[in-house]
């Protein structure tokens, strides 16, 4: 086994690491910042915040998004809220508690130093966003309101109705717009990054394809920052937006960036169950609904009665029954797995028997309809619109769906990947959530990375490059990378087969969901590992993409993304197979306690599994970063 990866964690007590690090990193003089070019790919919370902040500091920034506007990134869909350790509610919260909860919630598979820093800057994020005009919910006295959110026993979640992600993204987008107007940031919209180019082992730039003209071009810089989101769409049906994809990080992986913990995926418990075969995506109902909604199924299987006719005594409020202390607020993986167990026992509800009830009648009685409407009105409307059912009249039906991927490119404490000069932020990296992410922590991490961490750490990497120009884009390496991209896309058009990229994506998604979803085991993973390459061969022989490469061609865009999902899907299964333990969102049915809870193996698996690419569809080579816990004592999670 290769030596443990060096995460460059600063020395000293955990409370002092970040301050000490900020003091020790090399700085770029304010007057010299304009001499550095930085590429940022992605304009969600992490990318938008990073590009705006770097531009504000004086760097020359080029920012790329495949959307028409930077404000469309899928961060916008996050509903529930953002955590911070403000302790405004005087209920015992602190930076240490947020740190502790996040490490514990991640089932002790995250890096302590990163998580502590995240908790520290969480408070700066709330200050920053409030000053930017994010209209967070307020109490009647005019101060900020908080609520408690899945997995937390303190009220530390700030929110803006059910549209927190939207409002935070607008803050970052508006800050970015200001820098674009000032000319410090140049925006390239409808441009998809298709490769990272390295020269002499260092990231030199990227190759992008203009989605309107098909033109392939190169851009170089002193550093490249990827903030391109997660890869839940490998499952085809997920809560991600239709265009969310893994191409940017996967291509970086192929160029040498290690990919950490690819099997750590989060299945979100509160989504609307699919209604038919045409379903193109699954819609999430914010987890905050679990604060006031009670989850139940009929106590006996195949109960045909409508919910209103099932008396209390014949309902099973299974989370409240099994976890009296946390009840409906157990972490997402626990809630999801228990819902699946109920459906496996054929107690599922709805026309396809694929849901469990989320019932607000008790809350409406206790709080009044007005309060419930104030808190969740837009979510109730959304549910009604999609299902045609009124949740005030009858309980919602919910079911788990792939939602977030904790895995991603391996990064050190500076958020730099194993390719020098290539950084990775937000959901696209692996860093802060371990094997499971707590609710309202994704927005926190994206903004922490973008506003507060990367702008401080990137100087350390690029300061020595002062006086050098970025690599010329006529360099051989760029020419070859551009040619490879053109060949790849021409190749999809040339196959002339019979099936669409969507069809293959759906098939891949079924394999992934069946064998690498909420529950995994050796035979299933081995089956997936044999099926995926076979389906991939079929993809390469039987794909059909019409049209050409010189105008808008959405089917062609999808073909490239699905191609990369195949390769990533295989790696996810390999990682899940190698990790012979259960932890967080990774549940191996061979490894569970007698009570059916996840059973970790800290002796063998308290490490980050970071994979090296060895060739297309070839088994990856595993590197490890051993996780050292100096501040948090490893315990078996218990939410009883």
């Amino acid at each position, binding site marked *: 086994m290769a030596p443990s990866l060096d995460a460059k964690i600063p020395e000293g007590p955990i409370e002092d690491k970040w301050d000490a690090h900020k003091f020790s990193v090399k700085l770029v003089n304010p007057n010299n910042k304009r001499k550095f070019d930085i590429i940022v790919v992605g304009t969600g919370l992490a990318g938008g915040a990073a590009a705006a902040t770097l531009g504000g500091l004086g760097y020359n920034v080029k920012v790329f998004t495949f959307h028409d506007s930077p404000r469309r990134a899928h961060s916008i869909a996050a509903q529930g809220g953002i955590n911070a350790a403000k302790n405004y509610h005087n209920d015992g919260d602190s930076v240490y508690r947020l740190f502790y909860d996040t490490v514990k919630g991640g089932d002790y598979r995250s890096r302590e130093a990163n998580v502590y820093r995240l908790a520290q800057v969480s408070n700066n994020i709330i200050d920053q966003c409030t000053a930017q005009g994010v*209209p967070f919910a307020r109490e009647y006295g005019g101060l900020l309101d908080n609520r408690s959110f899945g997995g937390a026993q303190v009220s530390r979640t700030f929110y*803006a109705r059910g*549209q927190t992600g939207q409002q935070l993204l607008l803050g970052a987008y508006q800050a970015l717009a*200001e820098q674009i107007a000032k000319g410090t940031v140049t925006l390239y919209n409808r441009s998809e990054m298709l490769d990272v180019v390295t020269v002499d082992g260092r990231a030199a730039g990227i190759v992008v394809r203009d989605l309107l003209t098909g033109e392939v071009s190169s851009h170089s810089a002193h550093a490249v920052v990827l903030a391109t989101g997660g890869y839940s769409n490998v499952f085809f049906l997920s809560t991600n937006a*239709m265009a969310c994809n893994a191409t940017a990080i996967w291509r970086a992986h192929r160029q040498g960036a290690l990919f950490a913990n690819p099997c750590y995926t989060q299945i979100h418990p509160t989504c609307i169950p699919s209604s038919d*075969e045409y379903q*193109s995506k699954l819609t999430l109902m914010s987890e905050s609904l679990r604060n006031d909604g009670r989850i139940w199924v009929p106590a006996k299987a195949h109960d045909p009665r409508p919910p209103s006719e099932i008396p209390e005594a014949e309902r099973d409020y299974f989370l409240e029954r099994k976890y009296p202390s946390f009840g409906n607020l157990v972490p997402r993986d626990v809630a999801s797995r228990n819902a699946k167990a109920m459906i496996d026992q054929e107690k599922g509800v709805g026309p396809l028997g694929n849901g469990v009830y989320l019932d607000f009648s008790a809350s409406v009685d206790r709080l009044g309809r007005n309060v419930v409407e104030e808190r969740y009105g837009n979510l109730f409307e959304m549910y009604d619109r999609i299902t045609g059912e009124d949740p005030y009249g009858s309980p919602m039906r919910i079911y788990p769906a792939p939602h977030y991927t904790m895995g991603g490119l391996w990064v050190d404490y500076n958020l730099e990947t194993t390719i020098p000069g290539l950084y990775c932020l937000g959901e696209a990296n692996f860093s802060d959530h371990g094997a499971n992410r707590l609710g309202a922590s994704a927005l926190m991490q994206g903004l922490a990375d973008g506003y507060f961490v990367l702008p401080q750490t990137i100087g350390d990497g690029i300061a020595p490059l002062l006086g050098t120009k970025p690599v010329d884009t006529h360099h051989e390496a760029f020419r070859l990378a551009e040619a490879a991209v053109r060949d790849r896309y021409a190749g999809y058009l040339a196959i002339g087969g019979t099936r669409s990229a969507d069809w293959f994506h759906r098939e891949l998604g079924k394999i992934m969901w069946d064998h690498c979803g909420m529950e995994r085991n050796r035979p299933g993973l081995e089956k997936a590992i044999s099926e995926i390459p076979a389906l991939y061969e079929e993809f390469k022989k039987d794909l059909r993409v019409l049209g050409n490469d010189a105008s808008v061609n959405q089917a062609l865009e999808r073909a490239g993304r699905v191609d990369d999902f195949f390769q990533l899907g295989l790696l996810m299964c390999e990682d899940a197979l190698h990790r012979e333990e259960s932890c967080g969102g990774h549940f191996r049915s061979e490894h569970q306690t007698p009570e059916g809870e996840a059973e970790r193996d800290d002796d063998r698996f308290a490490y980050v599994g970071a994979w090296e690419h060895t060739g297309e569809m070839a088994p990856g080579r595993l590197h490890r970063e051993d996780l050292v816990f100096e501040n948090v004592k490893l315990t078996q999670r218990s939410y009883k």
Partner: protein
Amino acid sequence: MAVTDPERQAPSLVTGEKHHGRTMHLTLRVWRQAGPDSEGRFADYDVPGISEDMSFLEMLDVVNERLASDGEEPITFDHDCREGICGTCSLMINGRAHGPERGTATCQLHMRKFGDGDTIVVEPWRAEGFPIIRDLMVDRSTLDRIVEAGGFITVSPGSAPDANLVPVPKVVADASMDAAACIQCGACVAACPNSAANLFTAAKVAHLNLLPQGEPQRYQRVESMVDTMEQFFGSCTNHGECEEACPKEISIDFIATMNKDYLRAKIKNRRYLSRNP
């Protein structure tokens, strides 16, 4: 292996055996246009076997799969989150922006709102400020230009005071949030007989100008944003079609707020200028 297993064949796109509601037979009349400078035309498609539980965009997905099977290029349309929040989707459906259901973006519109045998006319947003790119896809980047002109509050990370330092009355925060709910889809422009972008611009102005945090840049913001808006879009003559079409039901009262601030800005900004020539 997956592909040859009959259980795993593609879901039937024609008859939809697995859905539970009604099935509809529709005629779609869709605007097809190969590129920005090409001539456009309506094309009619016979579309049987549509489930009422599908969303409008899932129906278009099905149509596109069928077109591709027949060797015809799929219909290009913008879409992404399919949760009514990203603002990427558009479409004039039977002459109405985002279709017949109030307060609903196209991606959240479901086929149960239509009847068996209906003919549905689908067009792109039509406005000078939104040139057509292809089929139903238009270029809305002019809206980004309006935001770049002043739709922000300047604050460098690290410089913000504690978030609770400035109390904001709940009603003010709520009104700001009402305006901030805008998804920048452009339906207001598409629905307006003048192709005006006043509701969009007013929503962004109000979101920031109502808050104490937005006060220092209040008058610069409104003047700059309105002047930029007028470069690309028509003038508001109070038809109110924008509010009717808005998927987030943003009130045209915000236009009055913007107009009031704009008028004051014209006076105040001149005074500042005269002081600092």
